[in-house]
């Protein structure tokens, strides 16, 4: 990756938000692990894994409640901070069959009713195939990957799509940041020349440590900021 290309691509805004232009679209990278397509009022999130805690409980693993509420509160916060009309979920909306616990579905229903005019689109992921589509009452459009939108291909599994720039999730990328004796694991966006991977949005999702490829740009999410991660240029 050449340094100058990066610099021309990334405009550091005065409000500290990182922006990336891919597939002819300027995206804002949000530290809440989501992409904002401001022009079209679209929010893109990957791997929210609703009901994962309930699925764990059904399997006899005690996980406290609150993760669904946290996910929804996070969406609410983004909706009120930015003007959003459409949310696209890049797969793994529900975690498992056992994620369809009454309390979880009720919480989703209540949230949906509070945002009745919002357009919701789900690009099916591997977990959705197992868990089944969201209940009809949530009024979501459910589509197969790759879902083409202008010059973008919206997917769950990272892939290359001819003639489009692909956005995907699935791998829950995190980067290991190590300096001196300190070491941190942090969720990140990975932007390659033809495809990007989003960090997992869900509150109860883990991550897999990735190594930056030569052509890739990494953006690290902390609680309130997104950082560009300088991969060592050869």
């Amino acid at each position, binding site marked *: 990756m050449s340094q100058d290309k990066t610099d021309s691509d990334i405009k550091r805004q005065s409000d500290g938000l990182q922006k990336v232009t891919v597939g002819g679209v300027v995206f804002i990278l949000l530290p809440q692990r989501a992409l904002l397509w401001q022009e079209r009022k679209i929010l893109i999130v990957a791997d929210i894994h609703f009901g994962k805690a309930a699925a764990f409980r059904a399997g006899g693993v005690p996980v406290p409640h609150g993760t669904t509420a946290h996910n929804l509160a996070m969406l609410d916060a983004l909706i009120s901070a930015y003007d959003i009309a459409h949310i696209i979920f890049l797969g793994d909306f529900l975690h498992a069959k056992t994620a369809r616990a009454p309390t979880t579905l009720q919480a989703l229903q209540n949230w949906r009713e509070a945002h009745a005019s919002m357009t919701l689109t789900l690009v099916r992921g591997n977990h959705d195939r197992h868990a089944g589509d969201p209940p009809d009452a949530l009024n979501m459009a459910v589509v197969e990957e790759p879902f083409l939108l202008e010059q973008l291909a919206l997917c769950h599994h990272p892939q290359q799509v001819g003639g489009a720039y692909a956005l995907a999730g699935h791998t829950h990328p995190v980067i290991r*940041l190590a300096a001196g004796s300190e070491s941190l694991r*942090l969720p990140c966006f990975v932007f390659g020349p033809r495809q990007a991977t989003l960090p997992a949005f869900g509150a109860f999702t883990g991550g897999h440590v990735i190594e930056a490829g030569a052509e890739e740009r990494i953006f690290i999410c902390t609680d309130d900021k997104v950082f560009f991660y300088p991969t060592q240029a050869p």
Partner: protein
Amino acid sequence: MRRRSPDADVDAGSGSSEAGLKSIRSKRTDIDQRTPLDHWFAAKGWKIFPFQREVWKMARQGESGLLHASTGSGKTYAVWFAALQHAMPILAKRGQLSPVVAEADQPKARCKSVAETGLRILWITPMRALAADTARALEEPLAALLPAWSIGSRTGDTSGSERARQMRSLPSALITTPESLSLLLSQHDAAARFDHLDAVIVDEWHELMGSKRGVQTQLALARLRTWRPQLMVWGLSATLGNLQQSKDALLGLNRGVLVQAATRKKIVVDTLIPDHPSRFAWGGHLGMQMLSAVTEEIDKHASTLVFTNTRSQAELWYQNLLAARPDWAGQIALHHGSLDRAVREWVEVAIKTGQLKAVVCTSSLDLGVDFTPVERVLQIGSARGVARLLQRAGRSGHSPGRVSRITLVPTNTLELLEAAGARKAVAAGQVEQRPVPNVPLDVLVQHMVTIALGGGFRSDELFEEVRSAYAYRALRPDQWQWALDFVARGGQSLIAYPEYQRVVPDEEGVYRVPDAAIARRHRMSIGTIVSDSSMQVQYLRGARIGTIEEAFIARLKKGDRFLFGGRMLEFIRVHEMTAYVRRATSGSGAVPRWQGGRMPLSSTLAHAVLDCLEQATHGDYPGPEMQAVKPLLALQQKWSALPTAQVLVVEHLQSREGHHLFFYPFAGRLVHVGLASLLAYRLARRRVTTFSIAVNDYGFELLSTTPVDIADLFPASTVTGELFSSEHLLEDVIASLNATELTQRRFREIARIAGLVFQGFPGQPKSTRQLQASASLFFEVFRKHDAANLLLTQAQTEVLEQELELQRLRETLAELRQRSLQVCSVTRATPFGFPLMVERFREKLSTEKLSDRVERMLKELEKAASK
């Protein structure tokens, strides 16, 4: 002579602590029981030791106990015969004649009824590798005394067919591990299987008692006692500073007797003195200077064990020994916990049969089978504690009457001081105490599910049973209720999770596990041993070499070389949790560093060292070690002062780096981490400063860029004031260290034991994979959504108690306040200060928020990259 008067027997055991024993015994049974044992010992040409008789006498009275004896002293047969004779009267009642007669006359068919009574004696060992050897030793007298008895072992290594056979009918005596015992307890018909159990022997209890495996054993014993109230339990223990507590931990508070084997094994501790002990000693600088002395020692003896403190050190020494003596190829071997089991077993057999000249090893050979051929034990670097030193010494001269000898090989000059201290402590019989875990809820939670599987439990009954285990004697009803809610309701009792069904009470209030999948998963993950996430290392086609931590492998690139298993390897690729390698043809490479276990200098040893320093202040340098370290100490005294048990020495030094403060409390590295962070925190509270911290076992350094006012800091010549106060200690320590990160690391083990995290297993169904999440994720979720979760509290307590040794820190502060203070302004680093300056460990005292921290780390990285 087959019969002796019972009185003679009582005499032989006199002097024992039999106060208050009022058991009614028939003289006849006494006679019958004793005779065959005498007979058997006589046939072997062995003498019965008084302590063996004492154990047998206690056992005949049904008494439980702990036998303190060194290895190779005949302790195994002491407890084994105690258990056998405890079982024999019952045998006789069933028509068995005197066993000696039985051997000669009784047809096997008539003994069938004996075998059908099932399990009679349980033998618990901490190491499954020991099971086979133990079985052989126990079997020997069995053939002569109780031919109808069968003996078997059941560990993680036992084959599936053997397990199935045991499930139909357990042998009369079973050798097992704490984990396999818990698994037996989780069988639905567990109570029936233990219906005829008479006695339990716990071997090497000192190895178990300080760990969660020991707690697991305590809980299993509590369960067995519920089923068999007359159950006799005997433990075997090596020397410890808290034997009485060790006994209580095994048997319950103030229960059972402690029997001391009078035969004290003679132990020699000496040191290889370096030719040129430097006055400036940093970690390991002497290491290879001692190589030729070590090869000489190995050369002189038929078989030597070379102990190192870490696996990487073992790899290095093995490599260097081979380089120094290429002719030893094939005659020396390497043994550590990360090597493949097949490799380790081969090495163990080869030592036993005397085929190896030397083995470089780690604590992996602290325990284990008897290595009779071993003549010599060398310890590279400080053993850090007296108990460990004795344990390792005992690996040589392993049979009654022979002398055990351990020779210390210092890796830096200051370790000579430790060697002198170690000799002093051994001579004075001072040995460390081993703390027993206190109310570990993760083990309890696991045990509750185990018991729910093994026939079920009622809350109030199991509560009482658990409280009879020493580790839970202080278990409060609210803690119990929390644990019950955790397994039965999935968390906080106020919230109902209808989907949660791990342990469910039936209409009679008996808690059971209704779901087969949960039951299977629980059985797969019983146990408290949590391994670091590690990867198999394997040649491209074929042989497995061992395992290395994932973190090390993750940093390797194709073609990188590293030293492992005594060979230089070239990394090729990772595929499905296996790192593939090939032999490297030449060159040098990194040595993997395995996490964990850098033990701090023990309090016992540290105090012995302070005593040696005290003597040195009076010009008294006894013994070769003190003579060799004399130039270093003299210089320290000239430039600064010698710290002792009466004097805390603080040095102040100004250098280009900044302002250094050196403290020498001699309290071990963990306490020094806590103490240094605490002082830095308290100093920073007075005036905003940032300190860099370095620690070792002797002291610590605080380095700041801004000047420190010595007169203001230390106004008096005593260690007083807010700086060294024990007030608000807990809060200050938590605030001063990045306790969250430490706690999160600790939580890994707890999450695994409490059944939150599963270690995957081959062929696991997909549905299980959807239940996998990392411990750190659980940690985050609990902290955010269930901050009162007691497992979080436990993680913090464990960090404070075990990783920061809070109790010892408290004691150290109290001790320091008794010392006088000597502040020396020095112009250059002193012999004690120098190793601290080169110690690479630099801990930033940082309480910055995450994004600031990331920003700073990125800056550091950029700076490093642009160099």
